[in-house]
């Protein structure tokens, strides 16, 4: 029985409002360390889900996702540093005490970061269209690295030394909002007719093309949307860590996101979310054996491929009802009469 729309909307707004209140009015109630982990998890969720759109649903193996994140983070950070003071003073605030202006700045940053990254996704999507499988992977890897090296050489954003003193606008509330947005948009996209077209591209591109699916357009769409969300994740990252260095956006970062998507299951949004959270929290809990962390990661990946290449959730979303039915099967009435 579906609850009326109004009720659902009210519930949503109410919960978000509660979150906002908690953050603004009672900040000392929040455990900073837990908040930090959740913010980082949220950012990784956005990265994983957006990469899943490209890799999992459309079957385009992209190894350059960190590049989109970098573009989003750098443009957003640069905007905040250069144009920020002017925007804020128009509102009567200053960079050191932004007040409500912080929210505006973050929204602008997200739009700029996401937009710039989407543009990059568009530009990257088009030329790489002709490539398949391994070649596409390597090409996207190369493009991600080129993005990194180009940023490395732009003095205006700090060049090799990094972009510093980015204003801090990210908070758990915003990360949560963006994560919810990412999941909802991707979920709905995948379950729409556009999503079916993407799946067709993944399953058999030639067949899809010959059946009239404009594969080119959809591949570019996947790249653009995926890149946009990665860019927004980058923006949140920039305004959280307050310092950006191109070292954080190398192909190693791209690999990390790929591992999340693969672990969760390529084609499963729930999988991406779960794996992102797991792989953000795991290193923290493994801190005591920090030296072994990456080795365990790598081993995990290899074993995963050998034993369960489809990841945790495979290519679908878990269906709680089906799961429950399997655990507690209702016994069918005995044939004939009972005793």
């Amino acid at each position, binding site marked *: 029985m579906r609850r009326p729309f109004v009720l659902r909307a009210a519930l949503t707004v109410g919960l978000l409002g509660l979150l906002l209140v908690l953050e603004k009015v009672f900040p000392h109630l929040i455990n900073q360390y837990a908040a930090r982990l959740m913010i980082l998890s949220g950012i990784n969720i956005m990265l994983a889900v957006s990469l899943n759109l490209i890799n999992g649903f459309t079957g385009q193996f992209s190894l350059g996702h960190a590049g989109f994140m970098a573009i989003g983070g750098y443009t957003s950070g640069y905007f905040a540093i250069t144009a920020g003071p002017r925007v804020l003073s128009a509102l009567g605030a200053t960079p050191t005490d932004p007040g409500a202006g912080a929210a505006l700045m973050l929204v602008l940053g997200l739009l700029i970061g996401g937009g710039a990254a989407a543009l990059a996704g568009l530009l990257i999507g088009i030329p790489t269209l002709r490539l398949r499988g391994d*070649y596409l992977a*390597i090409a996207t890897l190369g493009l991600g*690295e080129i993005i990194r*090296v180009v940023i490395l050489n732009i003095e205006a954003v700090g060049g090799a030394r990094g972009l510093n003193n980015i204003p801090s606008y990210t908070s758990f509330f915003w990360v949560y909002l963006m994560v919810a947005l990412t999941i909802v948009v991707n979920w709905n996209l995948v379950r729409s007719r556009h999503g079916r077209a993407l799946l067709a591209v993944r399953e058999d591109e030639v067949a899809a093309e010959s059946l009239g699916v404009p594969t080119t357009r959809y591949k570019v769409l996947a790249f653009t949307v995926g890149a946009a969300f990665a860019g927004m994740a980058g923006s949140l990252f920039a305004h959280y860590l307050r310092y950006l260095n191109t070292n954080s956006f190398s192909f190693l970062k791209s690999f990390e996101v790929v591992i999340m998507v693969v672990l969760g299951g390529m084609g499963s949004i729930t999988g991406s979310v779960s794996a992102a959270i797991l792989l953000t929290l795991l290193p923290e809990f493994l801190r005591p054996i920090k030296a072994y962390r990456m080795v365990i990661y*790598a081993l995990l*990946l*290899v074993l995963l491929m050998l034993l369960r290449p489809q990841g945790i959730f495979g290519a679908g979303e878990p269906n709680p009802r089906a799961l429950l039915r399997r655990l507690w099967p209702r016994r069918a009435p005995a044939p004939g009469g009972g005793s």
Partner: protein
Amino acid sequence: MQEFLQQLVNGITWGSIYALIALGYTMVYGILRFINFAHGDVYMVGAYIAYYLVAAFGLSAGGGTPLAALLILLGAMLGAAGLGIIIEQAAYKPLRRQPRLTVLITAIGVSLLLENGGILVFGADPKFFPQILTSRSVRLPGGALTTSHQLLVLGGALVLMVALSLVVYKSRIGRAMRALSFNRDAANLMGIPTDRIITFTFALGSALAAAAGVLVALSTPRIDPLMGLLPGLKAFVAAVLGGIGNIPGAMLGGLVLGLAETLVSGYISSTYRDAIAFAVLIVILLVRPAGLLGRAVSEKV
């Protein structure tokens, strides 16, 4: 003019290193149609094996003879060949029937494993390879100055490439390798022991990568567990540039890339050095994916 000649020597030297590593990539791709991401890290392992061999023999700076150096080189090559075999048997062979994506991801995993395992075992701090052969300045015709080390690298790489060519084109096992790269199933049906040939190919490629690692360690004496990352990627680009699956292509690609990198680094800006490889990659993939010497393959429906 002198500067240009010097840069040329620099470029060709690095080019031959890329070529050595690229050969491994190209051979494996030719036979299995699979990019072995972990190959660059075998280069690193080779350098470390040599490092520990040097320590085991108690050699120090200037205390080695050419014979000792040769033995160390061979030792590293053998060790790396063994590693290549282990990796192939444990991680790639079980996945031979799986979609290519799965193996690709596995290769990434093996690469990360080697790198981080290296950090764990060897320590993240760079180590300094004792210069067991002292370097002397050598003046080339034209006024360019080079070192005996650079010439050693060049010479060594050349010898190895020639040896490889002999194996691939003149020996029985080489013929089997080439047969496999044309059509694996047909080769199998003709009685060629495909599994063994594949294993041999991995071993051979790994040995060459290790040799490159040792040669580099001798001349630029700093080794660290992540040293194989970039050279590995660049060597892959070199292989693609030359035509992946094509052995002379790998050598040519390596040389061209090494030269391009050095010339850009020397005359424009060295910060773009790493980007050159990737730019070349993109251009080649878009303009002529088959590479300089490769054959275009069309996709059958």
